[in-house]
């Protein structure tokens, strides 16, 4: 299964250390492979350095792709986290 969703980074400081940490903590709960792409770069959604390396700030649109049995649930959870501004 492959699921893809586009979300906007709404929290003010973008993919900062704390949001990246929260993203990884959520992503690793799923078996699916998670990829996050932005501006021609793509990163492993389970790697904090990968996510920080996207250098994505507020207003950037990220594409989250999950591949695996729980792809739908993973994409929903991760998109929800990003849309919520990382629960802040």
């Amino acid at each position: 299964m492959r699921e893809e969703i586009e979300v906007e980074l709404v929290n003010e400081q973008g993919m900062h250390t704390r949001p990246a940490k929260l993203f990884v903590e959520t992503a690793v709960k799923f078996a699916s492979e998670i990829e996050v792409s932005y501006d021609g770069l793509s990163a492993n959604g389970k790697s904090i350095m990968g996510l920080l390396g996207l250098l994505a700030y507020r207003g950037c649109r990220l594409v989250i792709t999950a591949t695996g049995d729980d792809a739908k649930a993973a994409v929903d959870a991760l998109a929800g986290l990003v849309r919520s501004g990382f629960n802040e």
Partner: protein
Amino acid sequence: MSIRNVYLFGQGVVPGIVIGRAHLIQGASQYAWNQRHIAPEEGTDELDRLRLAVEMSWQQLEDIKEQLAGESKDPGHILEAHQMMLRDAELQASIEKLIISERINAEWAVLRTLGAWEERFLRIENEYIRERFSDLRFVCTRLLRTLSGQTATEVTAPPPDAIIIAQELSPADTILLGRNAVAGLITLRGGKTSHTVIIAKAFEIPTVVGVSRAFEHVGEGDLLVLNGHKGEIIVNPDAKLVSVYRAQSHRLIAKDQALLEKAHLPGMTADGTPVHVLANLDFADEILKAKGHGAEGIGLYRTEFLFMVHEKDIADEQVHYQDVRELLERWPGGGPVTLRTFDLGGDKFPLTAQLAREANPALGQRSLRLALAHPHIFKAQLRGFLRAFALFPHLDLRIMFPLVASVREFLTAREILLECYRELCIEGHDVPDTFKIGAMLELPAAMMITDMLARECQFFSIGSNDLIQYALAVDRGNEKVAHMYRGLHPGILRMVRHAIRAAGEAGVDISICGDLATEPIPALILLGMGLRSFSMPPVFIPYAKDFLRTVHLAEIEELTAHALTLPCADDIEAFMRQSLGHRLQDTFWSEILEK
């Protein structure tokens, strides 16, 4: 013999005078880590060494995290992010790849990897993104230390009386140092509100930041005098200077004790004229210290910190509510508690930081102007304040707008505040209607219309730092003109007198919360002009109260009247010095400020 008495300057962020030996902590970029090529057969060993160092470093952070559990400023989540970075598969893979393909040892591979990331991060203009790089640097430095067999002991066990010098200190390092009774901290990087500074404050370690040339002038073991009040370092002071500072620091400690015991006495002059001495605070947990130092109220509670280093990406209503609630819960009552709405430069403001820089930020969209341009963020703060007020209806609660330029601007801000109040009432919050709304007087034009503002404002606070900067067109940070920044300039004094009079005539409270309140001569002149309320960092309060008890109002009024006839700041200062004579020299208040 090294050169004597080299002065270095930075920003004093935690006060206190200490004398100690320099202990240099090298960050990843300064230290000559062991870098060598390896033989092909060494590759596996090197990979094992790397993996072991990763796990050891991870465990070090785990240990620090455990020690920290339950502390009020728990930076545990930062440490967790650092742990996650250490074990990051991509980071490890890139280091391992370099070890094998380039045949270099683990240290070198870590440095190369760090360098590659640095290049990537620092290309970006965005301040927030650049800051993220410091997290990776902390992690890699820890890894390098572990690889070099230094483990964490290099940092945790500095020699006794050490004054630590580092490019920057991670929150973890600062905590460990704080527990090891270091005498002082010096960092090359600036930043008054970093996590490191917060922790140094909590441990009361005298600290100076932004001493950019420290590594050029200080060697391991050099004797240092660190003056955390003034942000001054003296490298290799001669015997005479050492004895002066040693005596000063001893006397400060002794005097501190004696004054602290008297700090609870009400502020007044020798003739019994009451003078309110209030505290300027940055953090809610400083409030007990403020009370212990004799604060008769909070004249200024800054809220910028929540925007700058709160781990939230932007402070929302709940954050403001929690913060003010924590503040008020600890305030035993008596005297005002004055909250200032955020006073940020555009470069520090989350929404505008990544936009093009303003050509002239001091004259640009900052402070209240930013708040009015982003009403949802302004309202989040105001609603947070008011919700917390609902829990403490008996307190003298005040909200103050910074950088007010005109009556219209004040009314606009006040209308937004009242709108929040009405909304909350409808939502069922029991917000008291007794809170006061006031303005900071820090623009020359605002000073001159104090009488008009007084019809709308319920109190004023003079912000002397910006006032002097704007009135004299001097940037204090620009060393070419910094000497022209003079609070005793007759033009400044006349404006302040005008404001004090106008407020007095209208029966509106007026106070001062700028640095001018912390300097004895200007403070006395303000007293002589009729000001009866001074707000300052808690550390100054016992000194100020003590000094005030030595002066008679009638004499100060007479001196002030003459001082105001003098044409230059230097004349005024010389006249006051001469007139006050030994009383000024005897006050420890001036001693902690002056050489």
